């Protein structure tokens, strides 16, 4: 798993590098059509050598003023967590050209259950969004999280 994460991280870094090279020619991805969410797998490192995996997680995004906001619907971060919640992450840097966008963010306080969740502040967020795929990696509080979805 660590090797997979390392490879994923390298890919993301390369993509960000390519994105940055495009400079002022950035083209923001269009907001998705309603109902066309990415559906994929959420993996949470439990920091005890185990991983919690949730399939069929829907993720939706919206771009406002050049910043990307995304919502992960009905997610759990541990097997024993008795509730699923919608987590909103706002103000993610978004760069790239059509069909190949990169995300980056740090110290973003997510919203869930009606308000901010400082305890689960998002750090080291990197990601790629294409028309078909969404790949994300970030720390949610102290828990490393990855998401790989398609539509």
């Amino acid at each position, binding site marked *: 798993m660590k090797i997979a994460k390392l490879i994923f991280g390298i890919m993301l870094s390369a993509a960000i590098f390519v994105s940055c090279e495009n400079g002022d020619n950035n083209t923001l991805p269009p907001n998705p059509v309603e109902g066309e969410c990415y559906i994929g797998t959420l993996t949470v490192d439990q920091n005890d050598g185990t991983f919690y995996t949730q399939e069929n997680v829907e993720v939706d995004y919206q771009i406002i003023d050049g910043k990307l906001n995304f919502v992960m619907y009905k997610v759990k971060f541990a097997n024993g967590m008795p*509730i699923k919640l919608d987590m909103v992450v706002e103000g993610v840097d978004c760069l790239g050209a059509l069909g190949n966008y990169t995300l980056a963010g740090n110290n973003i306080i997510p*919203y869930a*259950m*009606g*308000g901010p*969740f400082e305890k689960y502040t998002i750090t080291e967020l990197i990601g790629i969004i294409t028309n078909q795929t969404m790949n994300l990696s970030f720390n949610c509080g102290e828990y490393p999280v990855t998401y790989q979805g398609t539509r």
Partner: protein
Amino acid sequence: MAQEPTDSLHHDIELVEISASLKSDNRASKPISATTITMAQIEQRGIGSIKELSLIAPNFYQPDYGSSITSSIYVRGFGSRIDQPVLGLTIDDVPVMNKNSYDFDLFDIRRIELLRGPQGTLYGRNTSGGVMNITSLSPFDWQGFRGMVELTSNLSQRASMAYYSKPTERLGVSLSVAGNNEMGYFRNTYTDTMCDAGYNIGGRLRLQWLANNHLSLDNILTAGYTDEGGYAYQLLDKESGHYNPIAYNDPSSYKRLSISDGLVLHWNSGNIRLQSTTSVQYLGDEMTLDQDFTPKSMFTLQQQQSEFAITEDIVIRNADTSSRWQWLCGLFGFAKWLDMSSPVTFKHDGVEELILSNINNGIHNVFPENNIKFDTDNFVIASDFNIPVYGTALYHQSYFDLGRWRLTAGLRFDIEQTSMDYHSQAELGYMFDYTMTEFKPLHTKFKGREKQLFWEVLPKFSVEYRTSVGNIYGTITRGYKSGGYNTQIFSDILQSKMMNDMLSDLGIELDSSATQTSYDSASATRYKPETSWNFEVGTHLSPIARLSIDAAAFWIECFDQQVTVLPKGMSTGRMMSNAARARSYGVELSVDYGYRGFNIRGDYGYTNARFRKYNDGVEEYAGKRIPYSPEHTAALIASYSWHIDNNTLQNITLSADWRGTGSIYWNEANTLRQPFYSLLGAQLTLRMKHVQLTIWGRNLLNSDYDQFYFKSVGNEFFSKGKPLSAGIKVNVTI
């Protein structure tokens, strides 16, 4: 000039034509299992309400619990606690359209006839268990003044007075009023008041006019008002198995105003007889309930209903009763409009235990220090309903006399349309104190319309063989109970919807099923008709003078049985569901014998009613006995009258009665039951020329028995039967 009182009154009345109803078969021996109680028997046995007929008629059981709105009637194993009854009720041929009006004071009743088994062909909907026809005293039967006062051992008082007059040979007028001030038998230890105290008053104005030899009119206006308590429910202590004293904190009462006017027209052309029965009926009632029946402030209900109904029944029948082929045809129509408001108020403990605890139990697993909170500890789930029902029916019954044989065949086509407009809503503010600093308004509503159309074909076949001492018969009939709507589940639905709306607004989905319901849409609140086939054989015999023997055996197959279902968990509602298929078989036996002043009558009913299939989603109950309906009903009444030729005292009658019933199972799993129990009563009557003095006692052994069991928000409750009571009654007849 007034007639001879009391005994003469009863004697004269028995001689008068028993019923003018064209639907009635007035023969003593008819192809049906029936119990007939005359005016003399009603007064001799002190029958003051339909509930007091319970057990006297075989396989007829109406437990006495709750309040007057509670008319749970069971016949031959089937019955219902809410909504559609199994027994139809007519008073002077006018069908009573709402079960909430079934429990009323009987005064000046000439005759009660209970026909067991489906009577759908002639009487239509909600007669799958039978029909009770009550006939009041007519000014053409008797003229004079009647009055009664009664005092019981708990200091309750009852009184009635009536005047019957025939100003001309063709005009009869009567006016009767009756009232009851009930002091109650059961104390609510929380409020230290009698919870079943109350009063009622009622009256009847009857005008009868024989216009000519062909036409007669009979108008009966009745009105009644009751304001009473009730609901003597005791919480079961599950650890000790004992019942806690009655103790609940919120008021519980029932108020009812009922007004009915029936116009019965008879026309006889010589070849054809016609009867038209038209009625308008109003029922306005209000039921206030502490729904948790505990000292906690959990939730209350204040249900107000206003129902207006009109009915029309036209029957024509051939007039020649000696004809081999006799027939009747009928056209029935009714419409009723019900407006109902049933707000449920959730109070402090209810909000905490029924709603917030469900939500926060899940939340606490992740946020042990944080809660979802409401901005109030008292809020209302308002539910308003508008339910019109329209129905019509066409029916026919033919009788063929072939010597000693009589064949009867009947058919009814019944169609009914009903709809329900519902609007249920609640409003409050909430917050999750980990993420939110202010309350956020939450307005949940559930509004819409449901519609249903039912039609039924109700045939009847019977074969009767008549002998010089009686008859034997076999009958096949089909009956049905109408469908309807579960208005009592809407607070539960909205409560569930509120939680779901709030969790959705918070972006949360709980793994727990605590907030998930299986009736999330109004379509789940509909239930459809229950139908049954009844197969019966029986006999009515009178082998010697003053001995009559009635016996019947029956088998009933019931389809789409309407079962009262309590939703799982800490739910607050109840609903009817067509969840079961059932069968019932049994026997009925009545023997009446008199010799000089001595009379003895015994009635016995046995019922074996079981589910053929019923699965409530958790457990399969196939083979289990149907709850609430007794396996045995029995009554034995013996009396002896001494006739005394004395100017002052004319007659002394001493009677004793024994009634018993059981076992009654309280739940579908048959793990709880009331074993067979006995009630002993006695009565002494001193009859003078114009005055009759009666001293009576009921439940003389002070038997301890349960009348009712139910579950509410996880608690179990029982309602006990009335204890030993006695009374003294004076009747005056002039």
